[in-house]
Protein backbone atom coordinates (compact mmCIF):
# COMPACT_ATOMS: atom_id res chain seq x y z
CA UNK A 1 0.00 0.00 0.00
CA UNK A 2 0.90 3.63 -0.16
CA UNK A 3 1.36 4.10 3.55
CA UNK A 4 1.82 2.20 6.78
CA UNK A 5 -1.32 0.27 7.62
CA UNK A 6 -2.24 -0.83 11.14
CA UNK A 7 -5.06 -2.99 12.38
CA UNK A 8 -7.24 -2.98 14.30
CA UNK A 9 -7.66 0.77 14.64
CA UNK A 10 -9.46 0.24 17.92
CA UNK A 11 -9.43 -2.70 20.29
CA UNK A 12 -11.29 -3.03 23.57
CA UNK A 13 -10.41 -6.06 25.63
CA UNK A 14 -10.81 -7.41 29.10
CA UNK A 15 -7.98 -7.59 31.56
CA UNK A 16 -6.12 -10.87 31.22
CA UNK A 17 -6.89 -11.44 27.55
CA UNK A 18 -4.25 -11.60 24.83
CA UNK A 19 -4.23 -9.13 21.94
CA UNK A 20 -2.45 -8.99 18.60
CA UNK A 21 -1.76 -5.76 16.76
CA UNK A 22 -0.72 -5.83 13.12
CA UNK A 23 1.45 -3.51 11.08
CA UNK A 24 1.90 -3.57 7.32
CA UNK A 25 4.80 -1.25 6.44
CA UNK A 26 5.47 0.63 3.24
CA UNK A 27 6.61 -1.80 0.58
CA UNK A 28 10.40 -2.04 0.44
CA UNK A 29 11.03 -0.47 3.82
CA UNK A 30 13.48 -2.66 5.69
CA UNK A 31 13.28 -0.92 9.07
CA UNK A 32 10.18 -1.21 11.24
CA UNK A 33 9.49 0.31 14.64
CA UNK A 34 6.84 -0.04 17.31
CA UNK A 35 6.17 2.86 19.68
CA UNK A 36 3.60 3.28 22.43
CA UNK A 37 1.82 6.57 23.05
CA UNK A 38 0.10 6.94 26.39
CA UNK A 39 -2.14 9.86 27.31
CA UNK A 40 -0.04 12.91 28.03
CA UNK A 41 3.19 11.08 27.30
CA UNK A 42 5.57 11.19 24.40
CA UNK A 43 6.26 8.24 22.20
CA UNK A 44 7.86 5.35 24.03
CA UNK A 45 10.13 3.16 21.92
CA UNK A 46 9.26 -0.52 22.11
CA UNK A 47 11.16 -2.46 19.44
CA UNK A 48 13.09 -2.09 16.19
CA UNK A 49 13.32 -4.53 13.30
CA UNK A 50 15.82 -4.50 10.49
CA UNK A 51 14.48 -7.06 8.06
CA UNK A 52 13.14 -9.95 10.12
CA UNK A 53 15.55 -9.57 13.00
CA UNK A 54 15.05 -7.41 16.06
CA UNK A 55 18.43 -6.10 17.20
CA UNK A 56 16.81 -3.96 19.86
CA UNK A 57 13.98 -5.21 22.04
CA UNK A 58 15.03 -3.07 24.97
CA UNK A 59 11.86 -1.02 25.04
CA UNK A 60 9.45 -3.89 25.56
CA UNK A 61 7.93 -3.17 29.01
CA UNK A 62 7.72 -6.77 30.19
CA UNK A 63 7.86 -10.36 29.02
CA UNK A 64 4.13 -10.14 28.30
CA UNK A 65 5.07 -8.14 25.20
CA UNK A 66 6.52 -9.78 22.11
CA UNK A 67 6.80 -8.94 18.44
CA UNK A 68 7.73 -10.68 15.27
CA UNK A 69 8.20 -9.78 11.65
CA UNK A 70 7.92 -12.19 8.79
CA UNK A 71 9.07 -11.94 5.18
CA UNK A 72 10.66 -8.61 5.94
CA UNK A 73 7.21 -7.11 5.82
CA UNK A 74 4.25 -7.52 8.17
CA UNK A 75 4.85 -7.28 11.91
CA UNK A 76 2.68 -8.40 14.79
CA UNK A 77 2.90 -7.02 18.33
CA UNK A 78 1.42 -9.41 20.87
CA UNK A 79 0.47 -8.51 24.42
CA UNK A 80 -0.35 -11.43 26.66
CA UNK A 81 -2.49 -11.24 29.80
CA UNK A 82 -3.28 -7.59 29.20
CA UNK A 83 -3.34 -5.16 32.12
CA UNK A 84 -5.08 -1.81 32.42
CA UNK A 85 -1.74 -0.01 32.22
CA UNK A 86 -1.31 -1.44 28.72
CA UNK A 87 -4.06 0.89 27.49
CA UNK A 88 -2.45 3.20 24.95
CA UNK A 89 -2.10 3.90 21.27
CA UNK A 90 0.42 1.60 19.63
CA UNK A 91 2.13 3.20 16.67
CA UNK A 92 4.04 1.43 13.96
CA UNK A 93 6.54 3.17 11.68
CA UNK A 94 8.72 2.08 8.82
CA UNK A 95 11.79 3.51 7.16
CA UNK A 96 13.89 2.79 4.11
CA UNK A 97 17.02 3.65 6.07
CA UNK A 98 19.67 0.97 6.21
CA UNK A 99 22.93 0.71 8.02
CA UNK A 100 21.68 1.76 11.40
CA UNK A 101 21.33 5.44 10.69
CA UNK A 102 18.26 7.33 11.74
CA UNK A 103 16.12 8.19 8.78
CA UNK A 104 12.66 9.54 8.24
CA UNK A 105 10.04 7.38 9.87
CA UNK A 106 6.64 6.98 8.24
CA UNK A 107 3.91 6.31 10.78
CA UNK A 108 0.64 4.46 10.65
CA UNK A 109 -2.47 5.85 12.31
CA UNK A 110 -2.06 3.60 15.30
CA UNK A 111 -4.03 0.95 17.14
CA UNK A 112 -5.85 2.26 20.18
CA UNK A 113 -5.97 -0.40 22.88
CA UNK A 114 -8.33 -0.13 25.83
CA UNK A 115 -8.09 -2.71 28.58
CA UNK A 116 -11.12 -2.80 30.86
Amino acid at each position, binding site marked *: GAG*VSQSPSNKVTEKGKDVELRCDPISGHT*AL*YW*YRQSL*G*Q*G*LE*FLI*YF*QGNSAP*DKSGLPSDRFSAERTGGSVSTLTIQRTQQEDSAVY*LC*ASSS*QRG*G*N*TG*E*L*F*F*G*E*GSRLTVL
Partner: protein
Amino acid sequence: AQSVTQPDIHITVSEGASLELRCNYSYGATPYLFWYVQSPGQGLQLLLKYFSGDTLVQGIKGFEAEFKRSQSSFNLRKPSVHWSDAAEYFCAVGAMNDYKLSFGAGTTVTVRA
Protein backbone atom coordinates in the same frame (compact mmCIF):
# COMPACT_ATOMS: atom_id res chain seq x y z
CA ALA B 1 21.44 8.20 25.98
CA GLN B 2 19.62 10.82 24.00
CA SER B 3 16.65 12.73 25.38
CA VAL B 4 14.33 15.44 24.18
CA THR B 5 12.55 18.09 26.24
CA GLN B 6 9.59 20.09 25.04
CA PRO B 7 9.03 22.59 27.86
CA ASP B 8 5.56 23.69 26.76
CA ILE B 9 2.78 21.16 27.20
CA HIS B 10 0.09 23.37 25.71
CA ILE B 11 0.15 26.60 23.71
CA THR B 12 -2.83 28.67 22.62
CA VAL B 13 -2.35 31.10 19.75
CA SER B 14 -4.67 33.32 17.74
CA GLU B 15 -5.17 32.63 14.08
CA GLY B 16 -2.75 34.75 12.08
CA ALA B 17 -0.32 35.13 14.97
CA SER B 18 3.18 33.70 15.02
CA LEU B 19 4.03 30.43 16.71
CA GLU B 20 7.22 29.11 18.26
CA LEU B 21 7.56 25.68 19.83
CA ARG B 22 10.61 24.93 21.91
CA CYS B 23 12.72 21.79 21.77
CA ASN B 24 15.90 21.01 23.68
CA TYR B 25 17.86 17.84 23.22
CA SER B 26 20.61 16.00 24.97
CA TYR B 27 22.89 13.88 22.83
CA GLY B 28 26.60 13.18 22.85
CA ALA B 29 27.06 12.96 19.10
CA THR B 30 25.94 15.18 16.26
CA PRO B 31 22.17 14.89 16.30
CA TYR B 32 19.69 14.35 13.55
CA LEU B 33 16.62 16.40 14.47
CA PHE B 34 13.01 16.09 13.42
CA TRP B 35 9.66 17.74 13.98
CA TYR B 36 6.49 15.71 13.51
CA VAL B 37 2.86 16.81 13.68
CA GLN B 38 -0.07 14.66 14.76
CA SER B 39 -3.55 15.86 13.92
CA PRO B 40 -6.46 14.37 15.88
CA GLY B 41 -6.97 10.72 14.97
CA GLN B 42 -4.06 10.73 12.57
CA GLY B 43 -0.59 9.26 12.49
CA LEU B 44 2.52 11.40 12.79
CA GLN B 45 3.59 13.37 9.74
CA LEU B 46 7.09 14.71 9.23
CA LEU B 47 7.24 18.52 9.09
CA LEU B 48 10.98 18.94 8.65
CA LYS B 49 14.34 17.45 9.50
CA TYR B 50 17.92 18.54 10.08
CA PHE B 51 20.91 16.34 9.37
CA SER B 52 23.68 18.81 8.53
CA GLY B 53 24.40 22.02 6.65
CA ASP B 54 22.30 25.14 6.85
CA THR B 55 21.00 25.42 10.40
CA LEU B 56 17.72 27.00 9.29
CA VAL B 57 15.54 24.37 7.66
CA GLN B 58 12.29 24.81 5.84
CA GLY B 59 9.49 22.30 6.04
CA ILE B 60 6.00 21.71 4.84
CA LYS B 61 2.96 23.83 5.69
CA GLY B 62 5.08 26.97 6.09
CA PHE B 63 7.05 25.74 9.11
CA GLU B 64 10.74 26.29 9.72
CA ALA B 65 13.16 25.33 12.46
CA GLU B 66 16.58 26.50 13.52
CA PHE B 67 19.32 24.28 14.93
CA LYS B 68 21.42 26.00 17.58
CA ARG B 69 24.21 23.74 18.71
CA SER B 70 25.34 26.10 21.48
CA GLN B 71 21.88 25.97 23.05
CA SER B 72 21.11 22.34 22.17
CA SER B 73 17.87 23.58 20.69
CA PHE B 74 15.78 23.01 17.60
CA ASN B 75 12.81 25.36 17.87
CA LEU B 76 9.94 25.23 15.41
CA ARG B 77 8.39 28.43 14.06
CA LYS B 78 5.58 29.56 11.83
CA PRO B 79 5.01 33.26 11.04
CA SER B 80 1.23 33.07 10.74
CA VAL B 81 -0.82 30.15 12.01
CA HIS B 82 -3.96 28.79 10.42
CA TRP B 83 -6.80 27.05 12.24
CA SER B 84 -5.67 23.80 10.58
CA ASP B 85 -2.38 23.99 12.49
CA ALA B 86 -4.17 22.94 15.67
CA ALA B 87 -2.48 19.64 16.49
CA GLU B 88 0.15 18.01 18.66
CA TYR B 89 3.77 18.59 17.72
CA PHE B 90 6.64 16.28 18.56
CA CYS B 91 10.35 16.95 18.45
CA ALA B 92 12.63 13.95 17.97
CA VAL B 93 16.36 13.22 17.94
CA GLY B 94 18.39 10.50 16.27
CA ALA B 95 21.88 10.22 14.82
CA MET B 96 24.22 8.55 12.43
CA ASN B 97 24.82 4.96 13.56
CA ASP B 98 21.80 5.17 15.85
CA TYR B 99 18.60 3.75 14.43
CA LYS B 100 16.47 4.84 17.36
CA LEU B 101 14.44 8.02 17.23
CA SER B 102 13.67 9.47 20.67
CA PHE B 103 10.66 11.72 21.03
CA GLY B 104 9.71 14.54 23.33
CA ALA B 105 6.41 14.51 25.24
CA GLY B 106 4.78 16.78 22.68
CA THR B 107 3.22 20.25 22.63
CA THR B 108 -0.47 20.65 21.96
CA VAL B 109 -1.33 23.74 19.93
CA THR B 110 -4.79 25.28 20.10
CA VAL B 111 -5.70 27.95 17.56
CA ARG B 112 -8.41 30.44 18.50
CA ALA B 113 -10.34 32.47 15.98
